[in-house]
């Protein structure tokens, strides 16, 4: 199944369902309609047949056995009416399953390909969330609404045809009176969304206050400050105000839906009134009168309610489809889903030349004339206040945002001239909000180099001559504390056989070891094959700091020539942070690293420090040079150092 860039309308739910499962959808559409005809016109005819025959037998002595065919017709009709529903429901669930299998993956794929700015842009993100939440339900609800509406129309039409076939002028009278009423009631069905939105405002507020009263985050303040009664009081006020608004909205909705019931009741009365004359004048049999009147009055109860609801659901489906049209139209990033190149290019230099950038939807330039040049094999630290633009730099480098002014040059060539797969292979990033994938720990690490996952792993390992090596020798060694000392030698071991200067290629086990995960691994039920998180069977939770180490191990297996560590220590306390720095010093020897942090301890590892302020480089140099310059860096550093003197 594919979704085209077009304006999807409410009725397109039917087409999508039809595309997903043509036969079942046809049956699903037909059966309820047949059922409606059976329930109304056919039941009426059957009843008429029976009553008239019975009357004839009782009054004028028609042979008794004449009644049996009439009885049989009644019973068969009953049988159909009763059993078609189950079959239709089965078809409906088949359609739903088919949509789950064909539509859902398509939505996921489109979602995954979006230009990154849509993910960070609040408005687009809301649209995406609305569409992706439960597309199958939205569409099947739409389909069901259309079918329900068709059922209503068919019920009405079949009774109408029946009447017309009996007394044509009665049908005409009814038509003349009911059509305008019908149109009127459809008009009234347009809802007052404004009132609903006003009521929603209050419910959002009470929801928030409820969170304040019962949430976990603020349990300390709540307990100590004891504000429950005061906030509870505000909650009550807000709730009551919202409730009073909501009552009005609900009242209106009920008036509309009951209005159509009453309308149907009125039409039924009209039908019955018109038909009494013909019965008395013997133009219509009493049985037929009873059949028709039963059918018509039987409809009131069901249809009035269903009509307003199906119309409402159809318009809801229309809204969803409008969202869907917007969703498929959001821009996709080119080659978003490609894997990084297996063999990354080597990077000699990386340069920003007068780069200016603002986020879409914001006027403010977060990078404003940023220029710097980084060289291979050195460690860089980017420091600066929050909001200075540090993280934005990593987003531009990794190609998440492409609409910047100025130039970003890799080996002197503009970044966007490289294929996407090459750019992906250039950088390995440990993010501040690194991903916690709930899969096996080994897979979690292997994702750092996707060629390690699945069957492809072996090939690559063989290709670089690493298969099966090392793991045995690692098993016996002591955990973390020793790891630091032996890191350097292990790294060399790992790179043995690779061309000098190239990035190391480690196995998942080695990476876990280097990232200090040995203790964690041995504590897990199935070692490195234990699923992390609580999603998979036998999955186990690990702490925030341990997750961070997994993220670091992921970066270690990567073959990317440049490693970016974006606030990698934010989940750690300063003591663990300090340990991590020490590890990193060893792990990253000889590689190009960019350390983004607002903590200054990290700068000790750096060959050069770049201070970012107001979207440009405020200062740049070695620690000593910057301290001597007595600028922003010196101020920040002194602020922290004074504690340790």
């Amino acid at each position: 199944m594919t979704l085209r860039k077009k304006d999807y309308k409410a009725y397109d739910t039917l087409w999508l369902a039809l595309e997903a499962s043509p036969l079942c959808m046809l049956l699903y559409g037909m059966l309820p309609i047949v059922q409606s005809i059976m329930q109304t016109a056919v039941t009426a005819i059957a009843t008429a047949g029976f009553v008239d025959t019975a009357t004839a037998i009782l009054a004028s002595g028609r042979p008794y056995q004449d009644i049996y065919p009439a009885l049989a017709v009644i019973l068969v009709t009953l049988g159909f009416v009763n059993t078609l529903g189950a079959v239709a429901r089965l078809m409906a669930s088949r359609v739903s399953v088919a949509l789950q299998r064909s539509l859902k993956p398509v939505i996921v794929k489109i979602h995954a390909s979006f230009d990154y700015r849509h993910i960070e842009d609040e408005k687009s993100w809301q649209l995406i969330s609305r569409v992706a939440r439960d597309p199958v339900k939205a569409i099947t609800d739409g389909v069901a609404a259309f079918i329900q509406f068709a059922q209503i129309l068919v019920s009405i039409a079949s009774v109408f045809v029946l009447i017309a076939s009996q007394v044509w002028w009665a049908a005409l009278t009814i038509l003349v009176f009911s059509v305008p009423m019908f149109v009127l009631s459809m008009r009234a069905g347009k809802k007052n969304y404004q009132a609903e939105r006003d009521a929603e405002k209050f419910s959002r507020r009470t929801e928030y206050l409820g969170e304040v009263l019962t949430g976990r985050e603020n349990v300390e303040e709540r307990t100590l400050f004891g504000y429950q009664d005061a906030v509870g009081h505000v909650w009550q006020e807000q709730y009551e105000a919202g409730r009073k608004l909501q009552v009005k909205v609900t009242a209106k909705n009920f008036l509309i839906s009951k209005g159509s019931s009453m309308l149907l009741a009125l039409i039924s009365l009209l039908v019955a009134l018109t038909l009494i004359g013909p019965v008395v004048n013997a133009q219509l049999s009493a049985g037929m009168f009873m059949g028709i009147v039963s059918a018509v009055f039987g409809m009131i109860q069901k249809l009035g309610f269903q009509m307003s609801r199906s119309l409402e659901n159809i318009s809801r489906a229309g809204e969803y489809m409008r969202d869907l049209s917007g969703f498929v139209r959001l821009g996709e990033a080119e080659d978003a889903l490609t894997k990084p190149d297996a063999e990354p290019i080597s990077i000699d230099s990386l340069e920003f030349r007068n780069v200016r950038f603002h986020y879409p939807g914001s006027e403010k330039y977060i990078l404003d004339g940023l220029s710097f040049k980084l060289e291979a094999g050195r460690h860089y630290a980017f420091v600066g206040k929050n909001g200075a633009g540090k993280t934005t730099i990593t987003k531009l480098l990794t190609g998440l945002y492409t609409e910047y002014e100025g130039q970003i040059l890799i080996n002197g060539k503009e970044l966007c001239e490289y294929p996407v797969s090459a750019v992906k292979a250039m950088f390995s990033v440990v993010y501040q909000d690194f991903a916690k994938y709930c899969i096996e720990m080994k897979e979690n690490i292997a994702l750092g180099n996707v060629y390690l996952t699945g069957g492809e792993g072996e090939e690559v390992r063989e290709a670089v001559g690493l298969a099966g090596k090392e793991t045995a020798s690692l098993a016996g060694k002591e955990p973390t504390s020793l790891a630091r000392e032996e890191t350097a030698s292990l790294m060399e071991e790992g790179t043995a056989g690779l061309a000098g200067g190239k990035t190391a290629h480690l196995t998942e086990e080695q990476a876990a070891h280097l990232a200090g995960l040995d203790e964690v691994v041995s504590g897990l039920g199935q070692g490195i094959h234990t699923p992390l998180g609580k999603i998979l069977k036998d999955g186990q939770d690990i702490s925030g700091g341990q997750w961070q180490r997994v993220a670091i191990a992921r970066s270690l297996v990567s073959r990317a020539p440049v490693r970016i560590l974006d606030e990698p220590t934010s989940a750690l306390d300063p003591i663990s942070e300090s340990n991590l720095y020490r590890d990193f010093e060893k792990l990253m020897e000889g590689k190009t690293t960019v350390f983004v942090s607002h903590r200054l301890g990290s700068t000790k590892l750096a060959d050069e420090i770049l201070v970012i302020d107001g979207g440009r480089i405020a200062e740049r140099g070695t620690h000593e040079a910057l301290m001597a310059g007595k600028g922003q860096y010196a101020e920040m550093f002194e602020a922290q150092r004074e504690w340790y003197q």
Partner: protein
Amino acid sequence: MTNTKKTKYNLLQVLVKILPIQIRSAPWNCLLENCLGVMHGLLFALSVTVTQYLFDAVSDGASGKAGYRECVIRLLVLAAVTFGQQIVNGVQNFHGIGVLLPKSAGRLTELIHKKVSRMDPVRFEDTDFLDDLNKAKEGVRAITMFCMLVFACVSFYGVYFIAVGIYLFRLDPMLILTLLLAFIPAMLAQVVHIRIFADLEDDSAPLRRECDHYQKAICDREYFKETRILGAFHFFYQRFENAMELLTGKIWKAERKAALIQLALDFTTFAGMGLSAYMLFTATMGGRITVGMFAAVFAALTQIFAIMQEVVKQHMGNMNRDVGKVVNFLRLLAMPERAGEEGKPDFTKGIVAENISFCYPGRETLSIKNVSLQIAGGETIAIVGENGAGKSTLVRLLTGIYRPGSGRVLAGGLDTARYSPVSVFQETSGVFQKYQRYKMTLKENVAISDSMSEADPGRARAALEESGFEKDGIGLEDMLSPEYGGVDISGGQWQRVAIARGLYRKNGFIVLDEPTAAIDPVEETKIYKQFARLAEGKCALVVTHRIGSARLADRIIVMDSGEIVDMGTHEELIARPGQYARMWEAQAQWYERG
């Protein structure tokens, strides 16, 4: 602290417990709801009789025994009953959904709020409790829905079936069987349906979670950029498709099974209706009932069966689904509360901890082991230690937010386990690591710490002044949340609001927990200094992550694995080889550069 065993309730016990709660939440509305139900049921049943009268007249009219007028009058009666029934039905539905439900939901939510405020805060560390609390919140609407169904079954359906039953019985005693024939297949279908889908849920829930997670790993904000840069899309997409295939396979199997059983039961229903129709037929042919009666009852037959299905399948199904939620609500209300004697703390007496130990619910190891400590009046204590050493837990015990599992804490002379929370806390304030960013006005954000008295703008202004909040054109009445049409302030500004909040509350004892969240070094230093000023001359506890800042305290406590491993002034501690010196060294090294 042990987990209370979960009490089991059966349906009857649930009913006995929740009906009074429901009725108390909106007594008049409950009464009205039932009156409407009875009226609706009667009118509904009446329409069958009235239809029969009409049909009799029409059938007489056809054979010339009755006139046009007679028929029209009877039709008008039927129309009147139908209109009346529609109106009552509309009013009842509106009253139930639009009035009773939200009204009761409000009252019941208040019950939860009040209950939570009286419970031990330590429960919030227990994920099981958080789960229960969430479920109890879901129970709020469920209770009213549940009770409304009970009301409907008694007043509306009960009255309807009794009235129709009497009518049928009077026509022909045999016809009363119709009701039974309608009931049995519907009941069977319901039982089978529940079983199949309960099994499906057990079976498919893990797969569904897996499927959702893979989708998240591709699409969610927290994963998006990393998955893209890693090129891990295909890895997760493959797994997503596989899990989806399995999941939908299971769903389809269950649906098919349910449909087949349903079909079989539909045949039973049909057989029931057929049998009823046959009884009507013999009664008609035997001359016991008129053809008009036949037509009216036959038409009503479909209705009776449909309503029976509605009661049993839909309503009982919903009740069955909701009973779990209702039970969660009841369990929450039954949980123990925290109370105690009234008293007034005197912090010149300081704070004393005698041999306290503490274990979080659901955990096996002690978070605090045998800690004894004396803080003199006016003394400032700094607590240092690695993450997970028990610093925050100790603070919560010393303030009385938690009560020790063994040993006792005297805060300002009051035993925190014996006195009521309000008494213990009345002179304690704090600035917490996880300080709150209330989506309220600036004034409310500050004055919320002392909500017992009317918010005092002068005091709030003074507190903000002292905390160093930069006015920047933000007034006391400004909303601090863009979501509610207010302003957005920076993290540093929020920190100052939190400090002002701590200051606003009268205190003889203050807790200052340092933020670890992202703030730049200059900001960090400012906050440390501010804390030092705030603590001056008071009983104060400062939790600190920068070892160096602990120097400002009178004494420093070093914690490790829930124990106090060292105690003393900065100079004393740095002089001896121990954890403090090690931690000092670990941090200081980054600032020693040649």
